[in-house]
């Protein structure tokens, strides 16, 4: 198992190199001049733009620029300097990524609790009123756009009831609405997945065996059925969490959360190459780590898979 983890971690290196190459190339061929955008507002002269271009190293050939990016990253751990704020990119990521991580953790946590509980009860009471209502809500949750749901929540809880702040991300109170906004749509997906996975498991013979032992229904469901139904649930939760590593751009914009999604969109608009490159690298890394954790969890959920992890 440990060997497997080490191998997977080592495999991250070529993945990260590949991601860097792709992002760098994409940004290189995207039209738009960061120097012009930066100076444009103050009406920079042609000379000033050219000077800035030279200073940013934008006139060097593609291969030199890519080489410089990789070299700085590998030798100094330096992702470059943000064109706009003149801060190191790593510092900007350190300011935004924790917010994204908190939001993702909170909303996925919420989604797992709601989704798994709803899914289990719906499966156990299949075709009951509870099941029908829960699945109708789940359908609503998946089909309702996040930004719209966010706005509705904001109108109700921030404007009418004035219980929760509408924007910002400084305290736990600020996190509730965005976490609920993102969490409910994930909860809907997780609930549907849990339900179908549980329904499949509940009909298995070993569930009858557990009942025939005289085991109580709740233990049969939680210990015997749920553990066997976990794999698809873990997969869904993992994908949801991984996607959120890239930030929830719309939700972050609505609630004015300084997360990585918002930072990335702003950086792309300004052709702020170092921030885009650094941001994508961190997002890709986080996504890969989440994937690795999911794969490790598989082994704990199902001993049949453990033997394959060599």
């Amino acid at each position, binding site marked *: 198992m440990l060997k497997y983890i080490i191998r997977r971690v080592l495999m991250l290196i070529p993945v990260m190199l590949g991601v860097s190459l792709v992002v760098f190339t994409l940004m290189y061929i995207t039209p738009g001049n960061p120097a012009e955008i930066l100076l444009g507002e103050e009406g920079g002269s042609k000379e000033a733009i050219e000077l800035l271009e030279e200073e940013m190293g934008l006139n060097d050939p593609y291969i030199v620029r890519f080489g410089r990016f990789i070299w700085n990253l590998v030798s100094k751990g330096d992702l470059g300097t943000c064109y706009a704020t003149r801060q190191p990119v790593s510092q900007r990521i350190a300011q935004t990524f924790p917010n994204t991580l908190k939001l993702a953790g909170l909303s996925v946590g919420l989604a797992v609790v709601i989704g798994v509980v709803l899914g289990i009860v719906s499966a156990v009471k299949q075709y009951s009123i509870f099941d029908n209502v829960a699945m109708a809500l789940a359908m609503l949750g998946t089909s309702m756009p996040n930004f719209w749901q966010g706005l509705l929540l904001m109108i109700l809880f921030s404007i009418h009831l004035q219980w929760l702040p509408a924007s910002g991300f400084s305290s736990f109170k600020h996190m509730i609405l965005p976490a609920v906004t993102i969490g409910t749509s994930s909860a809907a997906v997780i609930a549907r997945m849990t339900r179908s996975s549980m329904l499949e498991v509940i009909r298995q013979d070993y569930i009858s065996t*557990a*009942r025939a032992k*005289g*085991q109580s229904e709740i233990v049969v469901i939680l210990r015997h059925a749920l553990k066997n139904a976990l794999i698809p649930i873990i997969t869904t939760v993992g994908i949801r969490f991984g996607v959120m590593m890239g930030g929830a751009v719309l939700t972050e914009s609505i609630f004015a959360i300084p997360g990585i999604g918002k930072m990335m969109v702003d950086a792309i608009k300004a052709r702020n190459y170092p921030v885009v490159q650094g941001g994508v690298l961190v997002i890709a890394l986080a996504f890969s780590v989440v994937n690795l954790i999911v794969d490790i969890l598989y082994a704990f959920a*199902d*001993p*049949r898979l453990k033997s394959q992890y060599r």
Partner: protein
Amino acid sequence: MEQKNLLLKIKDLTINYNTYDGIVKAVEGLNLSMSNGQTLGLVGETGAGKTTTVKGIMRLLPDPPAKIVRGEIYFDGENLLKKSKKEMRSIRGKQISMIFQDPMTSLNPVMTVGDQIAETIRLHNDISKKQSFEEACTMLEQVGIKGERAGDYPHQLSGGMKQRVVIAMALACNPKLLIADEPTTALDVTIQAQVLEMMKKLIAQYNTSVIMITHDLGIVAETCDYIAIMYAGEIVEYGTKQHIFLNAKHPYTKGLFACIPDITAEDNKLTPIEGLMPDPTNLPKGCKFYPRCPMAGKECENENPANKEIENGHFVKCHFV
């Protein structure tokens, strides 16, 4: 049959499945009794209602769609159908336990076999986790598996070993009644023989009564004292092994025996019972076997025959005996 030794008495048991296609009468008016220490073979073709009957005894039928419409099941003098869920749980696994058809699917794939056996022991005995696991290892040894394999998961065992584990699990609390639902159907013939041999030994050792569901008359001949032949939800013939094997009276039972290929016969064609089981949502009004019966007469079409005792302890449900 002596009243005081009576272990199980089923009276007029009727079980329906309510489906979209109509009501499936899986078991109808079934009467059956067995005393302590007996091994009863429940024989019949697929769909005859054997598994439904025993799941009814265990109260393990999924409701919906299954519904026990009427009847009484007395176990040790008490009506199981009147028991609360909690009382039933203390009976399942402890007093009555069950071996399911397919060992490949009847073990939980994510629990070690030792834990699965220990679970039964711990449910019905007030002992520590460690003690129950040790007892589980002892049970494994009893069924011929080394105790150290208790930490293995089901996928690490062969089919025969899995069925041994299932048997160990069923016998772990020394039940009064063991229900074995085609315990060897999924195994190949050599393993079948081993598992049956071991079961016979353990049944004698624990003095357990057994209901053996099977459609293999060879297994019946080898293991059972009493035999009940089921057809379309009814017991059509019941008697001792000698009654059934030497003096079968019901045309269906005769048909079953005729199906066994004769190795000495010149003609190597099989002799099947003509026709198919009736549609369970639309059973014949009179005798259920009437449409397939070679000796059917007028009365068979409209009148369900009574259960007649033709000799001591030998019952046949047919107009022509």
